[in-house]
């Protein structure tokens, strides 16, 4: 699960306020410090929970009423309609509901950064059936049904020298970057890695063509940087 504000993966605890999931850092930044307090802190004030409930209710209604009145000046779509339908009415809606759209994008995809091609230009793609087949063999994770893996291996084409080379490159990357192996990175609690380790890890993962791992590490690093800027 990810924080719906910054997109960072939630590692420690989940803070849900008004139906929105926040990480510790964002909850603090949004002024929801009281949700982060330890129950023991409240023992000093026996009425603290009541105060908390009352102020939360006030804040919830404030937020709801504020949001529902937001309307796109061009097409007349309201925020409520956008939230119900998941669709916007025009290009201007992207400016009007910017924060909510970014939040929706983080919720769905864990990212809101555009990395695709420009209009009227071709994407730089390498994926062709024959190439991909060559790439896949050493990279494919374990098959879904492990007990039958050996059965299919017999049927698979014999490894070509290029495949072996790729596999060796992957293995080399596995042991590179000062002990940060792909396996270790996969198992690591990303929150415990330093920024430097994350940067090295991204490089290692990219070299080993572990793109999903690389994107997770990049998101973690980006989340930290953005958190730092906001803070």
């Amino acid at each position, binding site marked *: 699960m990810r924080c719906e504000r910054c997109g960072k993966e939630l590692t420690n605890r989940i803070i849900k306020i008004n139906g929105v999931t926040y990480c510790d850092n964002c909850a603090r930044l949004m002024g929801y410090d009281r949700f982060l307090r330890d129950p023991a802190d409240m023992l000093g004030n026996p009425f603290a929970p009541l105060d908390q409930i009352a102020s939360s209710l006030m804040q919830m209604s404030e937020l709801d009423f504020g949001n529902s009145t937001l309307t796109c000046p061009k097409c007349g779509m309201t925020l409520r309609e956008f939230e119900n339908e998941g669709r916007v009415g025009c290009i201007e809606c992207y400016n009007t509901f910017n924060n909510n759209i970014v939040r929706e994008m983080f919720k769905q995809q864990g990212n809101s950064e555009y*990395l*695709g*091609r420009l*209009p*009227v230009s071709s994407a730089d793609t390498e994926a*062709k059936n024959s190439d*991909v087949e060559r790439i896949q063999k050493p990279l494919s994770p374990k098959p879904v049904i492990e007990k*039958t893996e050996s059965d299919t291996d017999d049927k698979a084409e014999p490894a070509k020298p290029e495949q072996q080379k790729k596999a060796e490159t992957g293995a080399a990357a596995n042991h590179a970057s000062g002990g940060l192996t792909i396996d270790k990175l996969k198992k690591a609690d990303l929150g415990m890695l330093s920024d430097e380790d994350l940067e090295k890890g991204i490089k290692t993962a990219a070299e080993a063509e572990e793109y999903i791992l690389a994107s997770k590490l990049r998101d973690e690093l980006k989340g930290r940087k953005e958190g730092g800027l906001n803070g």
Partner: protein
Amino acid sequence: MADWYVKEGKDSDVVLSTKACIVRNVKGYNFMPRLDDADCQSLLETIDGAVDKNVFEGGQASKMDKDTVMRLIRLQVLGREGNQMAGPERKAFYYNEDASLAVCVGSGEHITVRASAAGHDISVYKKAEKLAVDLESKLDIAYSDSYGFLTSNVRLAGTGLKILYTVALPAISKTEGGIAALTQRVGQYEWSIYPFAERGELSDSNVYIIACVNTLGVTEDDVLKRGEMLIADVIKAERACREEIATSKKDQSEDIYGRSYGTLRYCALISRAEAIGALGWLRLYHDYDDAGEIKLSWNTLNKITMDVLWEPGTPPRKSGTNTLAASQRMRSDGIRKILKGEE
């Protein structure tokens, strides 16, 4: 020219089809949900002017006759229930000779470019991209540096690209926990898997669609590479499960294989669910049939599967006829005819 889905495809024992869809919107017009009828007509005319008529036929949906609509459903240009034909005066469909390339106007977004190919064939992306680039050069497309291509559905904003593999997984479906494990694996690639039909007759069809999720934070190349790695895993797992079932339960598998063929070849009435179930068994045991008495190519198997899956609605109701029986008879006649031809 033969329709795209009856052509030979790679890995067609598992992958029925590969599709690439790219959505775009034209600047200066509201998105479809907020587009009034007058502006919609203007949009349809603008896009019509940008579509190359030397390559594409078709046009406004309201002017299409019933036979064309049925053909477009069968060729998967229109949704299988034909529900894209709702509000035909606000929609247009263009398609090339074998319908492997299509432009849908007004179906969710202003423009949906779709390239389709039989079996496992990622070259569909380049075909779709080429057409999308051509339209982008002729039209003023909604684009922002921050979000990429802007869409009404914010889940598509960014690349606006969806890659979809339609896969037949009879063996994984029959393996305990197989689909759950596969769903987990697909999620690790940040893709999604869902049944061909969520409800109705085909909800247990053992045919699934595997589709990419991310349109932001990834390049088109990332999407294609991940997809290719994922589909290779799926193919490998399905073949492994087939081998496991066909060898560990050889007698039962052989028996059901023969019975399934017999049902399809000689029955007079058949439901879609029964047909897909029988086709699943033919698919599962096809490569392990030592006797070789049943002559059936993967191409034929896939054509029948596609025909049943993308079957246009039931025939028109006539007084005194049983609609359900009529549609079942029509289906079984069609299957018998194809299988007889194969013999």
